[in-house]
């Protein structure tokens, strides 16, 4: 029999928790089983122990060095009283026992992953996390393999090759699992890959379907009677919108976040940029680059598609998350999909067919004036067109880092009906040149130096009303804000900064409430969960990387043979942070 005082204390704690819990908290299972918290990818937790009144007392209770220096994007999973952490390359999977003091490792899985993608993966040798389903932890290794690991034992259940490194494909994205289907896609928009999504069998890893993001209807799994887009109609749009056979090196990668609507049985994901960056080498709309695709998970069939940036001139990938919400738009309840595109517009779409309901700029932009809702197309400013024949086109906003990075997944609170978004305020020059594709080498062809956008700050954390297309409040940050976001039923939003702070703000007012220096810049996404002791915890990765370890130049300290000057626009970031992967856990 355990000592009586402990039992009494535990009961008191549980009673306290239950009595203070709202209905929403009771509904939340306290776990974090997939990257976006739920299939709607809201990154909203019903836990409410942390409030604007007590969050000032939040303190670190545990930390762990991952032993890896590359960019720590993504987020841990918490399920079965275990925290699962996937590191950047070499993609180690750690399982921490949350029921024991000090959270010791239950097991560690160390895959045999090839080093070749280290300097191929753009940008940085990152990993965006795992997915828990059916007792398995499913994730991608950077070298083009997908693995399923037994969540209890750490044993490898299957390990299959899905992508081809020799063609420039790498696999840092987090899979989505729906029923018995694992959906994965490649990076490689800078290598002229022929982009795709694949559906694997959850039990075996066996390939069930491959859906190309360009090419003929048979390649894109587009079938008459099934494909019903609001704007785009007709056969072979993935073929006819490309000059000659340029679709074969379309780029059009899938490296962002996926979401799923069970009622419609549709998986949503964004497609990245077309290749090369010189648009004059690929006349046409270049569908379905820079688009959202709605596919049936079972057979991959394309149900609808919408292209945010036709004939991309600016590397405006659309890999950012598609957050599913039910909002009242123009006095009508709508099933919407909300997307903050690299191109600087926030889109509120009808998620049954892709109709644009609202599309407004959420950052300063000048490449287009507005989105025409009748056609769904942007109204362009021709002075910002790029191409090898146009030389150096000056001051295009936003930069190709995006008004928001697709890396930094936003959050949605059904309590405030607001979206919480990490944004980037950079502009760029764009000097394109003609490039030939040589398999296995980059297919880019543009020089694109950045400068801070209007106002001089490089980032802002904002709250956005997607029903009206308006910013409600914003917190300016010196550097681009590049972390994911979590928002809670206690009306707290958490985000991180490149100079290494984890911050908590009031989700209703934007008032800063708390911050802690986690040691290295935050490019991952904070999560919150209920521990085995019933308390609410917050976890986040520290470990700057991604684009910032490449373009800031001087952040990396682990390779003495690679010394770079800082980038002009961000010359002092290395004063505040270097690389270094850590997992942090916080509690009251």
């Amino acid at each position: 029999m355990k000592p009586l005082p402990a039992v009494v204390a535990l009961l008191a704690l549980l009673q306290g928790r239950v009595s203070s819990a709202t209905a929403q908290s009771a509904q939340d299972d306290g776990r974090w089983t997939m990257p976006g918290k739920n299939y709607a990818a809201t990154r909203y937790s019903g836990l409410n122990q942390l409030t604007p009144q007590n969050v000032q007392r939040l303190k670190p209770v545990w930390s762990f060095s991952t032993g890896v220096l590359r960019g720590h994007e993504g987020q841990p999973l918490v399920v079965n009283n275990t925290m699962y952490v996937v590191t950047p390359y070499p993609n180690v999977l750690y399982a921490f026992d949350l029921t024991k003091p000090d959270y010791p490792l239950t097991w560690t899985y160390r895959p045999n992953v090839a080093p070749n993608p280290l300097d191929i993966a753009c940008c940085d040798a990152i990993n965006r996390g795992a997915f828990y389903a059916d007792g398995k932890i499913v994730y991608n290794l950077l070298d083009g393999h997908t693995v399923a690991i037994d969540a209890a034992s750490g044993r490898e259940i299957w390990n299959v090759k899905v992508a081809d490194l020799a063609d420039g494909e790498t696999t840092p994205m987090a899979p989505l699992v729906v029923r018995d289907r694992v959906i994965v896609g490649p990076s490689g928009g800078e290598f002229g890959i022929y982009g795709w999504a694949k559906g694997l069998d959850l039990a075996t890893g066996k390939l069930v379907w491959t859906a190309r993001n360009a090419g003929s209807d048979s390649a894109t799994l587009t079938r008459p009677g099934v494909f019903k887009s609001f704007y785009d109609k007709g056969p072979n749009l993935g073929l006819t919108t490309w000059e000659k056979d340029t679709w074969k090196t379309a780029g059009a990668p899938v490296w962002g976040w996926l979401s799923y609507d069970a009622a419609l049985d549709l998986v949503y994901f964004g497609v990245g940029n077309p290749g090369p960056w010189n648009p004059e080498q690929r006349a046409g709309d270049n569908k379905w680059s820079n688009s959202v695709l709605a596919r049936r998970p079972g057979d991959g069939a394309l149900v609808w598609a919408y292209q945010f940036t036709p004939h991309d001139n600016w590397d405006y990938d659309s890999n950012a998350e598609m957050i599913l919400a039910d909002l009242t738009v123009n006095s009508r309840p709508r099933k919407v999909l909300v997307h903050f595109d690299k191109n600087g517009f926030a889109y509120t779409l009808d998620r049954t067919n892709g109709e644009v309901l609202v599309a407004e700029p959420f950052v300063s932009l000048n490449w287009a004036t507005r989105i025409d809702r009748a056609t769904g197309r942007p109204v362009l400013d021709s002075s910002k067109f790029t191409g090898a024949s146009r030389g150096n086109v000056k001051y295009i906003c936003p930069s190709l880092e995006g008004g928001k990075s697709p890396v930094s997944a936003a959050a949605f609170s059904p309590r405030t009906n607001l979206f919480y978004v990490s944004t980037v305020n950079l502009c760029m020059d764009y000097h394109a040149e003609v490039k030939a594709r040589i398999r296995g080498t980059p297919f880019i062809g543009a020089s694109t130096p950045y400068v801070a956008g209007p106002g001089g700050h490089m980032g802002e954390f904002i709250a956005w009303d997607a029903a009206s297309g308006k910013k409600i409040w914003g917190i300016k940050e010196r550097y681009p804000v590049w972390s994911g976001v979590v928002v809670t039923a206690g009306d707290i939003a958490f985000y991180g900064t490149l100079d290494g702070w984890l911050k908590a703000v009031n989700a209703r007012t934007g008032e800063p409430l708390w911050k802690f220096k986690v040691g290295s810049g935050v490019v991952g996404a904070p999560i919150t969960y209920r521990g085995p002791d019933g308390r609410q915890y917050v976890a986040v990765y520290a470990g700057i990387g991604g684009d910032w370890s490449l373009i800031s130049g001087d952040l990396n300290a682990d390779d003495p043979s690679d010394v770079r000057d800082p980038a002009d626009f961000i010359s002092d970031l290395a004063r505040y942070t270097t690389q270094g992967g850590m997992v942090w856990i916080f509690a009251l």
Partner: protein
Amino acid sequence: MDFRAVRTIIAGALVALAACSDRRPETAGDGVARQSSSTPAPLAVRYSQHIAAGGAPAPGDSLRNPYDGDQKSATEGEKLFSSMNCDGCHGGGAVGFVGPSLSDGRWRYGGSDGAIFQSIHSGRPKGMPAFGGLLSPEIIWKLVTYLQSLPVPKSVPTQAW
């Protein structure tokens, strides 16, 4: 399409090479074997960073850049650095991007003639593709000449604000 495009690029590079073939730099009188246009790359290249067990170097060749210091070759190499998409990973001006900087005077796999040649010809394990199946030794040497022509910045080790 890939193959056709690559052949076109290589044809262009070879034309450029032929145009300057009458300006080959002279052979240095150092007794080191030269890479000639018809000679394949050696199986192994020695460079100074290698540590030899017992002080006995393993069998291997030393290579010397036949265009060492030749400005025209460096200019051709600069064009090749773009047309072979080297800049896509190493950045314009070789200042570093996804791949390491090649303009900082520091070398992950050695900076001697033969070491740089070997890196381009046979590739390196962290993602550097092997170009030896695509490019002749002459063309690779032009790239080496370009990289060696880049001015090494002063005061590299210290960064102060």
